[in-house]
């Protein structure tokens, strides 16, 4: 109730100035209201509960789909972890394994029982592989040639013979556009087993023509394993090799056009370019001592494409004594071969990284930590995935097989 005269006057003026509703307003309002029903509004508790359920479902779905979204991991599980085969001859009993993208497999029963290492061309229409001649003849000193064939093995062509190259030619790698094949080559005269050969990187066209040496004269020995084209096809990355131990050492790139070499500091072995070519993941080895045990650190290292800004993603210390013990438990006798010990050491820590297609995750192999009193005497090697976005590490395989390689499909 207004008591102030000013308020009363204002009320009268304001009321008088107001227009009456236009004709028909009531029927219009009732018609509009008649089609409306009061909404049921959920209370706060219901909203919170439903939100939590949806979040839980989304988190579960995300966790389950993470690897499916990234791609499928294809894991080679070739030999049992019983020992002998795992110690260095695994490829002789392998049926189908994948190693750093390189597929090892036994040939069809109708073919001679030799091993072939094949690489499918980027378009999937052909394959290149190296093959040495007769079964039962040890390698070396046989000549090794690079062949090309359809995926089913038909229409096989000996590319290096066609190119007039003798000696040992191995580890073919397709360029990203499939027009050129890089491979390791050494003349038989410079190859002296069990010492290591002076391999060099060579290129030839996919049809075997225009074979030429890529690494310049006077270069150190190239590690025949693991040469990799850059995603844009402009250069090839590989490692030099220690002629005494046969182990890969410093990493380098070589320009495909000019043959110019460039060292890659902080990049180790099994290096792989990220899909966009901006980063490199590799395995670095570093001697060290932990709790009085002498051994090696195996590190999964991420760097920029030029080797700058190294970042250790995963590291694992492998004591030499544990390597020997593990080896002895595996094969039941003391080690007699440096190579085999080194192989065990190499597999025990992170090894053979493989980028997911999106470049967000890196899969790699690593053995479970050695436990002399536990059940891990088998030294089983499992597949792990490191998520670069969340820095989470996930173990993918949980089986009793010696995983010998991993790649994304």
């Amino acid at each position, binding site marked *: *109730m*207004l008591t102030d005269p*000013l*308020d*009363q*006057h*204002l*009320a*009268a*003026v*304001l*009321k*008088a*100035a*107001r*227009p*009456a*509703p*236009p*004709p028909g*307003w*009531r029927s*219009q*309002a*009732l018609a*509009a*209201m*008649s089609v*409306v*029903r*009061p*909404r*049921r*509004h959920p209370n706060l508790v219901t909203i919170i509960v439903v939100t939590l359920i949806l979040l839980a479902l989304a988190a579960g779905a995300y966790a389950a789909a993470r690897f499916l979204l990234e791609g499928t991991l294809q894991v080679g599980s070739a030999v049992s972890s019983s020992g002998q085969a795992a110690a260095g001859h695994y490829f002789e009993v392998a049926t189908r394994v994948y190693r750093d993208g390189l597929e090892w497999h036994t040939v069809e029963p109708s073919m001679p029982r030799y091993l072939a290492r094949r690489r499918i061309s980027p378009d999937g229409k052909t394959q290149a592989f190296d093959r040495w001649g007769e079964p039962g003849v040890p390698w070396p000193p046989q000549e090794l040639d690079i062949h090309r064939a359809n995926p089913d093995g038909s229409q096989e062509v000996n590319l290096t013979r066609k190119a007039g190259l003798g000696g040992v030619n191995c580890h073919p790698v397709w360029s990203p556009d499939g027009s050129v094949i890089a491979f390791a080559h050494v003349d038989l005269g410079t190859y002296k087993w069990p010492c290591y050969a002076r391999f060099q990187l060579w290129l030839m066209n996919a049809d075997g023509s225009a074979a030429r040496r890529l690494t310049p004269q006077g270069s150190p020995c190239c590690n025949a394993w693991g040469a990799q084209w850059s995603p844009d096809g402009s250069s090839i990355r590989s490692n030099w090799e220690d002629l005494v131990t046969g182990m890969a050492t410093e990493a380098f790139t070589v320009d495909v056009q000019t043959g110019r070499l460039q060292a890659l500091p902080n990049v180790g072995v099994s290096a792989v370019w990220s899909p966009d070519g901006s980063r490199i993941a590799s395995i670095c080895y570093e001697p060290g001592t932990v709790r009085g045990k002498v051994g090696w650190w195996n590190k999964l290292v991420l760097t920029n494409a030029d080797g700058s800004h190294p970042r250790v993603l995963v590291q694992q210390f492998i004591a030499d004594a544990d390597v020997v013990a593990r080896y002895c438990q595996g094969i039941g006798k003391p080690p007699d071969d440096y190579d085999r010990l080194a192989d065990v050491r190499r597999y025990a820590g992170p090894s053979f990284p493989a980028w997911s297609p999106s470049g967000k995750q890196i899969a790699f192999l690593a053995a479970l930590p050695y436990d002399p009193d536990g059940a891990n005497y088998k030294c089983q090697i499992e597949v792990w995935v490191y998520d670069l976005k969340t820095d989470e590490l996930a173990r993918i395989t949980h089986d009793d097989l010696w995983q010998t390689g991993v790649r994304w499909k």
Partner: protein
Amino acid sequence: MLDLDLVYRLQRADSAAYAELCDRFGPRLHGFAASRLAGDGEIARDAMVQALVDAVRNIRRFNPRKATFSAWLYGIARRQIGLAQRRQRRKGSVPASAQISIHSLSDLPASENVADDLANRLDAKQQVALLAESLTALELEVLNLHCVEELSMKEIGRVIGRSEAGVESVLYRARQKARERLAAYAD
């Protein structure tokens, strides 16, 4: 009590309650909208109808512990008026404050003395136009809610989103300005 009874029936989608809501609040909401929209009857009607529809749709959200039904309803109407004003601006029409609302005099109520009514309303509209020149839109709105709708300070605060003290402050300024302006008009 009547409001709560109406609310109870509206929540059950009682068509009689819809009609009662329309009859009791329709003209008041229309008047309130017209005062904000400078007498643009069509737009004010649309805003009023939409406010009633929104009120029915969201009647279950009305909480009598937080506001009276009138304050809640005027709050809805205020949002609809704001939307209508934004639509007007987007269309590039003449600002509501600059509109001459003489045309709205055609909806005169039945009266025996049409000439007197017309003179009174014209005079009232001139006074309101003078007030609109001096007062801000918020001050004019608070005056309307206080003097015409007779809402309490607390209810007005609920409608315009201000504290009770804030409303009193706005109302004090509005009355000061109105007093000066109307005195000048009388002279």
